[in-house]
């Protein structure tokens, strides 16, 4: 070799593979306004659809008169449940085993429920028509309180299910009961509580919130009557699932349905499910023979498609007097709204909520969740989290603080004492989950040192003394948490959606000149998949990331996959990508051996080439091998260089982190100022640190919004009072704190590249960290738990209740 030959490290750097802060491919079009989102699609003769919606939370629909609406100039058709019944689509199945009205069939069960769908030549005419649909209602008693749903005299929400004693998940206890689901060992947990020195019990509520991506849910349906084929463009996080469900519902053969999800303006769980807007657009296109666009307004978005949380958790912990946790019990009421349209893996009506033992070695635990119907919008999606993991993480991390308070232990010390230890991995929790890997103490210690935690506690003590002396009206709060997530759904033995195993896929085709294309079953909504999947391929195959196109979202071309949510893209499709690369590499190795006239085993891989062991000047680069694959393959070998991999993960992955938040609360205004927020994440192998940090910033900001102000609120009459950006809190750049990020890197042992997924960790860990900080500010006054959201009014109210206003 002469001096001009690049070293392995230099060659690796040029590939921009894993570990590189590669700039995003997507940005080139997005920064120039050249993204292609659903509302950008314009088709010849396209019509627009708009809903007439229920003004009531609960009412009988006595009569619907569409004559005036139909007479509006430009209105082409009006759909009601009666029209949909002719094609057997007035109701649709939900992912959770329930059925949901597509358009009001005799009743409306929540405010803004879809009643009629007006199709017109313009957006404006459709809106005019929707306003003129005349509906006669008879109001019915409303219940929006999940804790009252199973009262003996509660209003019947679902007349259609009243006599049914069996639901999709077993026996129903009450006419408003959906399911009971439990995990763990009740007898063992009860026994642990029997021998405990100290116990705590608290009702910890996680309010109803909404994922609220900046782009709402939208679609364009185009039915070709001649071919009998449907093309459905939509904001779909899971395009293949939409195709399969669409085929099952509509009876259109699956090969005649083409689902295309182009650029998506954020999802966060909002765009997983199937909504009446999609069904109505499809039917409207079939009826009119023209393409139909449906664009959800912001009010519709916040009040109808996909709420999250609404979990009310009666949580108990049992401990020895020196602070070792013995047991956990949790009883939860889950409000699923009027229809159980929860987007969970089918066997898990409460998702992966049994991750509630968190990062701690808890020997005995039991949880039971009852799902109930109320007069609220359906949904129950995982808003930037794996199914119900945020609820679990919030609950355990709040309970840890409440117990530490009762034990008079520092919350960080109490956590350190109970964290699962490094040598315990793989660790099987009391709920049966096998945590793949971790070094929790190292993460926690690094976090505590980074913020000089002991000094902060000393400052807090002094500030409290000064407060007592009347020298300040501010209280200092410190939130400290250690969370563990369960993501990457999932192993097919555990997870399916309507019977479809939750594998995912990648298909890679390397072209003769050494560039290529990778198509996947996932769908980016801002996560930067076009950038990061190419980095995995760059490292695995030694081809520059810039030479790899990544394509998702077209069900005709992409291999089948279950889509992007629950931080599953990297753990599942990322793994499929690596495995497909390895199939390609194995073939390339055989070609190299043939060309170099050596045995396969005499070759070794070096960044971008196979070289002959002991003779590094004899090599073939992957680019050369790609060319060879198309013109000089060994005798008997098929030409070409491509592979597809369907990856069924052996286990979930368990990312974790240690977060610390420091706040100052003005007890007279209720204003909370975030002084500092430090987030240490361990997501296993890091593919693109720039993108990871960006995801953490975004997730923390969403967590800040949830903890400090978000709530989808209903009044007693069933009116949703927070359905616009005037009332639903989204942080602006002004309120949003500065984020400090840090990391450790313990790879997942069962994942081909060791990556665990990260997008949702900051939301899962961020919410309890903020809430713990606010609660910590008041804890020395005997307050154990203040419910979220911690907006100024509620914080002021908490201070008022504690007698801090004189």
């Amino acid at each position, binding site marked *: 070799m002469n001096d001009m030959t690049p070293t392995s490290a230099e060659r690796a750097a040029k590939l921009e593979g894993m570990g590189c802060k590669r*700039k*995003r491919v*997507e*940005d*080139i*079009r*997005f*920064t*120039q*306004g*050249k*993204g292609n*989102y659903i*509302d*950008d699609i*314009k088709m010849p003769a396209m019509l627009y659809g708009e809903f007439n919606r229920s003004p009531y939370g609960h009412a009988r629909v006595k009569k619907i008169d569409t004559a005036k609406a139909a007479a509006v100039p430009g209105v082409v058709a009006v759909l009601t449940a009666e029209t949909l019944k002719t094609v057997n689509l007035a109701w649709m199945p939900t992912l959770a085993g329930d059925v949901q009205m597509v358009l009001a069939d005799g009743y409306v069960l929540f405010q803004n429920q879809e009643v009629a769908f007006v199709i017109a030549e313009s*957006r*404006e005419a459709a809106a005019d028509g929707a306003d003129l649909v005349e509906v006669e209602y008879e109001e019915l008693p409303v219940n929006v309180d999940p804790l009252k749903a199973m009262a003996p005299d509660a209003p019947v929400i679902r007349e259609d299910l009243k006599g049914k004693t069996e639901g999709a998940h077993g026996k129903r206890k009450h006419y408003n009961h959906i399911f009971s689901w439990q995990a763990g060992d009740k007898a063992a947990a009860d026994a642990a509580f029997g021998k405990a020195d100290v116990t705590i019990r608290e009702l910890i509520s996680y309010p109803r919130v909404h994922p*609220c*991506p*900046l*782009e*709402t849910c939208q679609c364009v349906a185009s039915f070709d009557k001649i071919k009998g084929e449907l093309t459905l463009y939509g904001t779909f996080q899971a395009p293949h699932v939409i195709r399969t469900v669409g085929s099952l519902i509509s009876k259109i053969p699956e090969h005649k349905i083409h689902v295309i999800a182009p*650029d*998506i*303006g*954020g999802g*966060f769980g909002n765009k997983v499910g199937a909504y009446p807007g999609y069904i109505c657009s499809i039917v409207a296109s079939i009826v009119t023979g023209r393409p139909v666009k449906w*664009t959800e*307004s*912001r009010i519709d978005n916040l009040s109808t498609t996909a709420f999250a949380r609404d979990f009310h958790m009666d949580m108990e912990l049992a401990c020895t007097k020196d602070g070792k946790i013995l047991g956990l019990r949790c009883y939860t009421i889950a409000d699923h709204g009027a229809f159980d349209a929860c987007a969970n893996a089918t066997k898990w009506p409460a998702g992966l909520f049994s991750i509630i033992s968190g990062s701690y070695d808890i020997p005995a635990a039991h949880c039971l969740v009852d799902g109930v119907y109320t007069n609220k919008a359906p949904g129950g999606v995982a808003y930037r989290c794996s199914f119900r993991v945020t609820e679990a993480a919030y609950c355990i991390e709040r309970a840890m603080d409440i117990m530490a308070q009762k034990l008079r232990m520092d919350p960080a010390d109490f956590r350190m004492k109970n964290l699962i230890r490094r040598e315990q991995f793989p660790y099987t929790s009391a709920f049966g989950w096998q945590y793949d890997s971790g070094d929790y103490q190292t993460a926690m210690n690094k976090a505590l040192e980074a913020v000089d935690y002991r000094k902060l506690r000393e400052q807090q003590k002094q500030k409290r003394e000064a407060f007592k002396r009347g020298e300040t009206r501010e209280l200092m709060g410190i939130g400290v948490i250690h969370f563990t997530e369960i993501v990457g759904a999932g192993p097919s033995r555990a997870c399916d959606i309507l019977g479809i195993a939750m594998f995912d896929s990648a298909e890679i085709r390397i072209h003769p000149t050494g560039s290529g294309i990778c198509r996947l079953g996932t769908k980016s*909504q*801002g*996560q*930067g998949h076009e950038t990061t999947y190419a980095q995995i391929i760059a490292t695995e195959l030694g081809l520059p990331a810039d030479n790899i196109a990544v394509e998702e979202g077209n069900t005709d071309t992409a291999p089948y996959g279950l889509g992007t949510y629950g931080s599953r893209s990297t753990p599942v499709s990322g793994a499929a990508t690596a495995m497909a690369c390895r199939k390609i590499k194995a073939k390339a190795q055989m070609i190299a051996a043939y060309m170099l006239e050596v045995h396969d085993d005499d070759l070794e891989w070096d960044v971008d080439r196979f070289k002959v062991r002991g003779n590094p000047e004899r090599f073939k680069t992957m680019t050369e091998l790609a060319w060879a694959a198309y013109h000089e393959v060994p005798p008997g070998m098929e030409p070409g260089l491509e592979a597809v991999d369907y990856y069924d993960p052996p286990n979930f992955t368990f990312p974790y982190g240690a977060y610390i938040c420091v706040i100052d609360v003005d007890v007279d205004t209720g204003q909370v100022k975030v002084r500092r927020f430090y987030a240490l994440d361990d997501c296993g192998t890091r593919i693109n640190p*720039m*993108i990871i*940090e*960006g*995801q953490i*910033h*975004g*997730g*923390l*900001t*969403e967590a800040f919004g949830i903890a400090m102000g978000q709530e989808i609120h209903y009044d007693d009459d069933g009116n949703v009072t927070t359905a*616009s*950006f*005037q009332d639903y809190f*989204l942080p*602006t*750049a*002004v309120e*949003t704190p*500065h*984020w*400090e990020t840090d990391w450790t890197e313990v790879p997942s042992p069962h994942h081909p590249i060791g990556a665990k997924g990260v997008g949702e960790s900051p939301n899962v860990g961020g919410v309890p960290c903020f809430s713990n900080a606010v609660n910590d500010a008041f804890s020395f006054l005997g307050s154990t738990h203040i419910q979220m959201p911690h907006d100024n009014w509620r914080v002021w109210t908490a201070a008022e209740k504690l007698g801090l206003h004189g």
Partner: protein
Amino acid sequence: MAKSHVTMKINGKTVEALVEPRTLLIHLLRDQLSLTGPHIGCETSHCGACTVDLDGKSVKSCTMFAVQADGADIVTIEGIANPDGTLHALQEGFRQMHGLQCGFCTPGMITRAYRLLQENKNPTEEEIRYGISGNLCRCTGYQNIVKAIQYAAAKLNGVAFQEAAE
């Protein structure tokens, strides 16, 4: 509904259109003129995804009738790049500093920052945060958007960009 004739200059070109009196400027731009860069996120002037530059001011085009823009000089994200076709310092800055993820707020955010940097050539972090507070982003947490705007300010001022210490 009777239509009105409007004339405006958009991205340097004179454009004529017939619009209903109630047609929103954003719908004129997106649906009639196929300028789909500016987006619709709320239609209540909260989110700023529809921001355009109109007669030297940042305007939320979802809350303005097209007829009100008759005679105006408008710049949208499609007209932000330099006349020679190279990217504007802001477009470059957003990519370099990872100031975007899903891209939906980006056109409005960049168009707002384009005006902000003409109002204040060297804004502090706090001035940037207030300056873009009419534009919501759900993905980035704003931290890298601030950096992207600082990057662009430095480039436009001909000075070296120094990232603030973490």
